């Protein structure tokens, strides 16, 4: 199965490159995202959950560092795309969404769903590559949730999203001010995480002692151990993801996942005669908008399939690939139910932890911050739910 996915990715890149030279780039970026997620065990779900449950900020600090890197990168790229931000037009492809009840409700539902399912959308995708059967079930749930959100979309658009304001900071503060304010806010968030950790009262030794290496051969072995042996530190993962995200935006668009997944869900549903029909207003929005129709071969397809292939490759190299099957039926229900909540939430909030958070805060809008706070609230409730499960 692993070879099939790798072969599919290679074939997609090869076929697609004949139509669009950027297909190779996006195939490689997708694989890069997958490798980094797998190696650094970069799980947005655990970033929120471990902070709430253990007062551990290991992953959250990595997330914040990644967003700081992308803030600088996105800022410079958007300055090139839209030099005069005060005129009001938002830089093309930026992940800036209206500040609406849908954004808050979507983030909240997503937060519950990711904790219940045991992984967010990017987490489920990279674990699909590592061999987790439960993550494939979550993926099915996510597609179902996106389809349901697409059926309700026109209501959300007309009554909630369309009338809501969009706040893009460069319009009011200029690029320098917006980047500086975002970086200061990220620093404040980092200090807040340190404060939460300090209230836990214990210092966890996260990484074992370094392997002593004197000779060239020993140094090579230590390097291999660091790359494909033990997992990478979350901060390293965050920095690399922020860097890849900037490259992705420079090539076309920031890292995003669920808009493309909704195209798959809605395409299959349309074939089955239960498609959502026309989705109003999506042409006026930027970012992870729900989608129906269009071409099959897109940059998003390459990113999403590449992510699974990259994680699979990294897991095989690190000897961490294994078919993992949940032992109790409750876990399948959690995966499916959590997946539906995540699919619906990301559908109405215009993105998941990647598109509406990790790529949104560096896009210098306020929506990423609102979504992040709603996520934390949902994760808190999700934790109460799973504490009651056997």
């Amino acid at each position, binding site marked *: 199965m692993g070879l099939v996915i790798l072969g599919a990715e290679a074939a997609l890149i090869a076929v697609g490159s004949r139509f669009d030279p950027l297909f190779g780039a996006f195939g490689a970026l997708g694989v890069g995202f997958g490798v980094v997620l797998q190696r650094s065990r970069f*799980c947005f779900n655990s970033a929120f959950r471990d902070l709430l449950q253990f007062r551990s900020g290991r992953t959250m600090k990595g997330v914040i560092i990644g967003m700081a890197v992308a803030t600088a990168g996105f800022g410079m790229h958007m300055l090139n795309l839209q030099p005069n931000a005060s005129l009001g037009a938002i830089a093309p492809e930026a992940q800036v969404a209206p500040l609406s009840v849908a954004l808050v409700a979507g983030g909240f539902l997503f937060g519950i769903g990711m904790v219940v399912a045991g992984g967010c959308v990017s987490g489920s995708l990279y674990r699909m590559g590592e061999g987790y059967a439960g993550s494939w079930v979550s993926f099915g749930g996510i597609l179902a949730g996106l389809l349901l959100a697409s059926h309700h979309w026109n209501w959300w658009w007309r009554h909630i999203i369309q009338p809501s304001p969009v706040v893009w900071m460069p319009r009011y503060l200029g690029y320098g001010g917006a980047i500086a304010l975002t970086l200061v806010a990220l620093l404040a968030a980092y200090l807040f995480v340190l404060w939460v950790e300090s209230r836990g009262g214990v210092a966890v030794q*996260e990484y074992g002692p370094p392997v002593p290496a004197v000779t060239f051969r020993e140094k090579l072995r230590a390097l291999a151990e660091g790359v494909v042996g033990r997992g990478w530190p979350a901060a390293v993962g965050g920095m690399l993801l922020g860097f890849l995200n900037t490259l992705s935006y420079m090539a076309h668009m920031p890292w995003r996942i669920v808009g493309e997944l909704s195209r798959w869900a809605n395409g299959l549903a349309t074939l089955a005669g239960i498609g959502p029909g026309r989705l109003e207003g999506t042409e006026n929005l930027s970012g992870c908008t729900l989608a129906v129709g269009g071409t099959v071969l897109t940059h998003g397809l390459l990113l999403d399939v590449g992510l699974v292939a990259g994680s699979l490759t990294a897991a095989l190299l690190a000897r961490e690939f294994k078919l993992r*099957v949940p032992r109790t039926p409750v876990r399948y229900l959690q995966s499916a139910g959590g997946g539906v909540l995540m699919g619906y939430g990301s559908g109405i909030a215009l993105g998941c932890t990647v598109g509406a958070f990790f790529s949104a805060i560096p896009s210098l809008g306020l929506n990423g911050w609102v979504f992040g706070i709603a996520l934390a609230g949902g994760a808190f409730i999700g934790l109460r739910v799973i504490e009651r499960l056997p």
Partner: protein
Amino acid sequence: MFLDVRGEICPFPMKKVQEALQRLPEGEVLEVLVDHPPAIDTIRMLATREGFLMDVQVAGSGEWRITLRRPAKAVTP
């Protein structure tokens, strides 16, 4: 004592280890088999918080054997 939490994902491996540690008789060692890499981190947090010493060995492709023991009590002369 032996605990097999393969197939479980976060936070359940940690939760089951926590329950087992509460039942662990004095002087015994808890051996845990896991196949979920992030669980190594959450179990390490738990071990640190509860004052257990932890050792991790690779037990196979995508599997790890974790040993948890109480630190030896300091002998007062």
